[in-house]
């Protein structure tokens, strides 16, 4: 990480600590904001957050590793999640996954070479009445066909 990057990240964290407070209970909200902007929470960010909240960095890591939406390693610019739970499974999630894997040339769980997409499974997106469902970043899409899903991905910048 370049020095400038570090400084701006440190400033960002300081700002978030002012905004949400330096209480332990602010931890997840801070992590969430950092993740949203940087798509992952770097070691450096973890240390900085720990320092401000007066906890051990391993505590921060332990929290990150617990939640499936938080990552300590970089992911693609866009996160695609395909629901794998039962109702979506019954309505053809397998076909969807295979089509996306073929189209992007990666396996589920991986990130494309150009860093554009990370494709993952999700557990029930709460859209089972309109299954199969998928999310791209914080938007959700339902009643998908492989064609429609690929079309959606092609529209992502």
């Amino acid at each position: 990480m370049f020095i400038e990057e570090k400084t701006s990240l440190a400033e960002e964290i300081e700002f978030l600590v002012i905004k949400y407070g330096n209480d332990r209970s602010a931890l997840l909200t801070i992590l969430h904001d950092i993740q949203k902007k940087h798509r992952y929470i770097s070691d450096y960010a973890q240390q900085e957050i720990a320092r401000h909240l007066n906890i051990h960095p391993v505590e921060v890591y332990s929290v990150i590793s617990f939640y499936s939406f938080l990552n300590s390693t970089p992911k693609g610019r866009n996160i695609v999640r395909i629901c794998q739970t039962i109702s979506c499974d019954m309505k053809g999630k397998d076909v969807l996954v295979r089509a996306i894997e073929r189209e992007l040339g990666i396996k589920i769980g991986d990130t494309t070479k150009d860093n554009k997409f990370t494709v993952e499974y999700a557990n029930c997106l709460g859209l089972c009445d309109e299954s199969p469902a998928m999310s791209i970043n914080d938007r959700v899409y339902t009643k998908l066909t492989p064609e429609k899903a690929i079309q959606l991905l092609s529209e992502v910048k």
Partner: protein
Amino acid sequence: MEIIKKNRKGEVIFSQYKRGDGIKKTVTLKREEILLELKTSKLKGRGGAGFPTSTKWMLTAASISDEKYIICNADEGEPGTFKDRVLLVEYPELVMDGMVIAGYTIGAKKGIIYLRGEYEYLLKSLQDYLQEMRKDNLLGKDILGKEGFEFDIEIFLGSGAYVCGEETALIESLEGNRGEARNRPPYPVNTGYNGKPTSVNNVETLAAIPHIICKGASWFLNVGTDKSAGSKLFSVSGDCEKPGVYELPWGTTINELLNLVDAKNTKAVQIGGASGFCIPKSQFDRKLSYEDVSTGGSVIIFNESRNMLKVLKNFMEFFVEESCGQCTPCRIGNVKLLEGVEMIEKGEHTFTYLNKLKDLGKTMQVASKCGLGQSSPNSFISILENFKDEVLNYSNGGNNGRI
């Protein structure tokens, strides 16, 4: 996100209600009067556990503390459940008014909505809604002119962990920790969020409150059965023509529900999601109610073409992924049950071993620390018992198709 309010029909939740009406009535009442009305209504928690709401509120109200909290558990992660989504999108007035009424009754100044991370796209519309409420003095200081009545609501976004639907795990998560269930006692009603008395209520439970306050307990008691008062929202998905959210009185039979949603050739219904029970056709006349088939509301329908072993595998994979790993029966148990399913798949199981696994499931039900591990063996046991012939593939010599 565009909000389209469907023309939903129902006797309680989806009946007529105007925003703020419940709060207007509330400020004219004493806390005890509200608690009594709730008690008379026999309203029980709609999340699945079915604890009487009045008792929970009474205990929180009775706890002495300068700070108290009311938490709306909007972390619905049960496979096949989406009723909370519909309530938050189409009926925020019910959920929010319910929280304000709760705040007044238990003496809390702050409400927190724990919104599951998967519903992040609802965040903006909910925040806008809260802002409108503040403008109309339905939130804030001296609400509706009632001196000293102060209450506001904040939204906290979850980060993708099913176990956080369990109330103590949810509180841990709010406090900035891993979402791991706590030992009980102490209970949240006296030692909850930040160690303060906290009442954690399901979205649907809160949505029933303004109706009860406005229309009275006896109106509520008119719907449902003796032991299960009122109605229930069901999230219906799977093999049927009309999936969606339905409000039905408690006591409706599974058959009636299947007719309503146009389900054909149904062979099984999973009631209560992955952590619930799989009910075979022979029992479709059973009643959805606390005294018979109790449920948080997820109904997944399987027709004749479905392979129940595949269904079971999907459920067990879910639990292996979602166990918080804190206690052994759940952490190891779910893995063992999944291995068992895989053995059956390959035709490598022995009956002695399967029976041992069922025993293991029963051990998990009593020895696990929280609801996740206590309920995850339900589908394993019920599918193995109710669909034995199919799952073990007797017609193929018990070898699951392999010769």
